[in-house]
């Protein structure tokens, strides 16, 4: 039962990514192409996604636990570290190079052929490489 809702949530996420066009690498690179033919679609996607989530956080604030009894994730401390800033810069660089971030990379795996597989495998390798580096940086 606790796995049914994550499946539905993942399915909706996949649907939303398709509908919004965020599985189209050209649209994502178009958003990042501020000095070229800029495509503002991603701003609408992010804005649209933040709305229901902002309501959800308000609902969560008035409750002790989630419906399945798990505590809500605590808001992280505002403390900034190099892992956050350097990690995000590197992520952004990879995002710009191909136009895929982790959600769409998984969502498009069934139809992106060899290209999608290479990207996803490299992404998994990058995740494994990050583990010891994170430990050394002392980031949470």
């Amino acid at each position, binding site marked *: 039962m606790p796995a049914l809702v994550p499946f539905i949530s993942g399915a909706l996420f996949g649907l939303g990514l398709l509908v*919004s066009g965020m599985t189209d690498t050209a649209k994502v690179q178009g958003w990042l192409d501020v000095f070229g033919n800029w495509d503002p679609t991603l701003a609408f996607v992010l804005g649209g996604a933040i709305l229901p989530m902002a309501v959800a956080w308000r609902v*969560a604030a008035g409750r002790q636990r989630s419906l399945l009894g798990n505590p809500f994730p605590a808001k992280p401390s505002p403390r900034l570290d190099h892992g956050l800033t350097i990690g995000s810069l590197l992520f952004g660089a990879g995002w710009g190079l191909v136009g895929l971030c982790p959600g769409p990379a998984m969502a498009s795996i069934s139809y992106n052929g060899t290209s999608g597989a290479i990207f996803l495998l490299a992404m998994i390798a990058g995740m494994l*490489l990050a583990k010891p580096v994170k430990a050394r940086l002392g980031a949470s």
Partner: protein
Amino acid sequence: MMHTDWLLGLGGGLIIGLAAAIFLLVNGRIMGASGILGGLVDGTGLNIWRERVAFIAGLVAVPALVTLLAGAPDSHITRQPLLLAVAGLLVGFGTRLANGCTSGHGVCGISRLSERSIVATVFYLLGGGITVFLFRHQWGII
């Protein structure tokens, strides 16, 4: 003119936000794609592996079904293996180091006004913008 793409973006965005809201209110989890996969990959989140696997299964299943019924959606993904490998490495490494990506920091973090998520989003937008500027307009690689 309000482009159809923008309306579809807004509609798709609302669906993504709904997905994240359900995951938070029912399971008490952050819907962050890099965290959900990363916790499986590096073994740090195996205590709730069922939720993670189920989420990824749903995420993969819907586009696969759509592809089966209506053909593959537009992807425009590059076919250059080196570019794909380097980009994938950077995305995987960077998101884990920063504890989040577009969904975790961008959608779930910004919507609760998390300072860390706002900073992360500024930095990955900066990283992406600089990269596209250099690789597209300066060097003509992408």
